[in-house]
């Protein structure tokens, strides 16, 4: 059964169409990358799939439409890690990760043994157990990104939506976070991540959805996508392709000639 199904899912901000209506299905166990140039609608699609932005059409979790699920059950079903996530008060890393258990607790209820176990599983997955007593303000950006990912993992939701989880991280921590997400998908769960790094996406994600100008351009395996021209056209770059240990390696190499000025105006 599909974990997440979108039918005619579209988003408009005022007069601007941020996402043209599309049908898409995701299965549990998949690790899907949403790729495309800036302003392509990747974040909008991710937020619409999570029910976080007013959208036309419908998203179903299993066979239940999100609005019928209710806020609380939706929060248990779909975990969301925003882009450039931040913490507004200098709480401890442990308290921050424990926020992921909020949908599982009732008003006035403290963390149960099961909640604490989930929090510690998440801390272990992202390798931040040793940081749990530290204030999030005192963490490096790499440490903070892992703690915030642990927060999203601690929900232990069957669906995890992550917006650029590897942005602003060094290669070691980029690989580490992608490994954690791949492991999470293997549970099985559905992981959908907005990715800017095509190399990481091709290395870890079995399925890639390419968006451009609010439209879905392609949807399939990275290896297939790399054999076609859509990626280069959308990104307006020349890609170097290579293969290593049977896996595709891709590297943006050269910009294509700039388009006429009127196409440049899209932010």
């Amino acid at each position, binding site marked *: 059964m599909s974990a997440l199904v979108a039918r005619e899912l579209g988003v408009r901000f005022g007069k601007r169409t941020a996402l043209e209506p599309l049908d898409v299905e995701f299965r549990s166990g998949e690790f899907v990358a949403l790729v495309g140039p800036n302003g392509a609608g990747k974040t909008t699609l991710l*937020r619409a799939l*999570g029910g*976080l932005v007013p959208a036309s059409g419908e998203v179903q979790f299993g066979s239940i439409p999100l609005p019928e699920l209710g*806020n*609380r059950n*939706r*929060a*248990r079903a*779909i*975990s*969301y*890690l*925003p882009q450039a*996530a*931040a*913490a*507004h*008060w*200098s*709480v*401890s890393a*442990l*308290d*921050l990760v*424990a*926020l*992921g258990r*909020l*949908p599982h*607790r009732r*008003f006035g209820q*403290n*963390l149960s043994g099961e909640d*604490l176990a989930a929090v510690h599983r998440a801390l272990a997955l992202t390798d931040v157990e040793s940081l*749990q*007593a530290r*204030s999030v303000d005192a963490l490096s950006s790499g440490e903070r990104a892992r703690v*915030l990912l642990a*927060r999203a993992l601690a*929900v232990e939701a069957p669906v995890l939506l992550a917006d650029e989880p590897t942005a602003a991280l060094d290669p070691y921590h980029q690989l580490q976070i992608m490994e954690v997400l791949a492991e999470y998908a293997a549970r099985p769960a559905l992981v959908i991540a907005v990715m800017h790094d095509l190399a990481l996406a091709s290395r870890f994600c079995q399925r890639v959805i390419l968006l451009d100008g609010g439209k879905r351009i392609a949807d399939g395996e990275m290896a297939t996508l790399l054999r076609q021209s859509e990626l280069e056209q959308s990104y307006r770059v020349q890609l170097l392709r290579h293969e290593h240990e049977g896996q595709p390696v891709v590297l943006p190499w050269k910009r294509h000639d700039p388009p006429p000025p009127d196409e440049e105006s899209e932010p």
Partner: protein
Amino acid sequence: MKAGHHDRIHWGLLGLLSFLTLAAFIVSMAVGRAGAGPQIALWPSGDAGAIIFSQIRLPRALLGVLVGGSLGLAGAALQGLLRNPLAEPGVLGASSGAALGAVVAFYFGFAHFSNLALPIAGVAGALLALGIIYLLTGKSGDILTLVLAGVAINALAAALTSLALNFAASPYAALEILFWMLGSLADRSLEHVMLVLPIMAGGWLGLAASARGLDALILGEDSARSLGFEPTMLKLLVLGGTALAVGSAVAITGVVGFVGLVVPHLLRPLVGYRPSRLLLPAFLAGALLTLIADILIRMMPPGPELKLGVVTALVGAPFFLHLVIKTRRGTT
């Protein structure tokens, strides 16, 4: 386990604050200028003693708890909602809005129709001020917009209040309004307490109901929504709760500023910076601070009584300045 350790500190803090507030309440009952010994607090004796106890001391101490608690609680919730240590009922203009509402009710004589007119007008004034803040924070809740909006609302409320004073029927009426505005717990009756208690309690419930959502907001509005807490609902709970609790408090006691600023700020490190854990301690500490200030006022040498609102402003305003400087350095 770490979480258990946190819980112990939390319960310890709550216990300590409860004890100190109770102690301050008893001391508040024992202190005063009327000729009654301190034993009145525990053992009111004789007719005069009973009257001083029930008509003067008890309402004053009770109002100290209710008003101070409301201010501390509302300050903590507002700071959690706006994720900003400078948010406070006074700074955001809720208090002066409520004062304006009460002055209008007073000025146009609504206050004569019903006892409830004054608190209702106070709540309405606070709602209006916070409504403007709500509209402004819909898109961006940045610190500068907020504080500037508060400045504007405070200035507008002050101007309209001055207008009312300007056209007051008699100098005596103007003076009465002016003295009331300074903020004081003195000379209020038990009827006043009973009048505002249900309104305040409604506000407290709204603020308390936001607790878990305020924790979720640590991660920002999108994450809060993804955790099942609708930010719009949280704003309604906190701003509505503040309007009810602070609006009715101001209508009875005038403006007592900065309690809601100072108290949450001092307690925040003690509760591990978690907004939900801050609410109850902020209520207790707000009550405690207000009771202590009111006790000190009454222990001053004879003469015109120093007003509570004047004292809290004298202490709170420099503290606010200190916070602004700290925030500018980004070390809050």
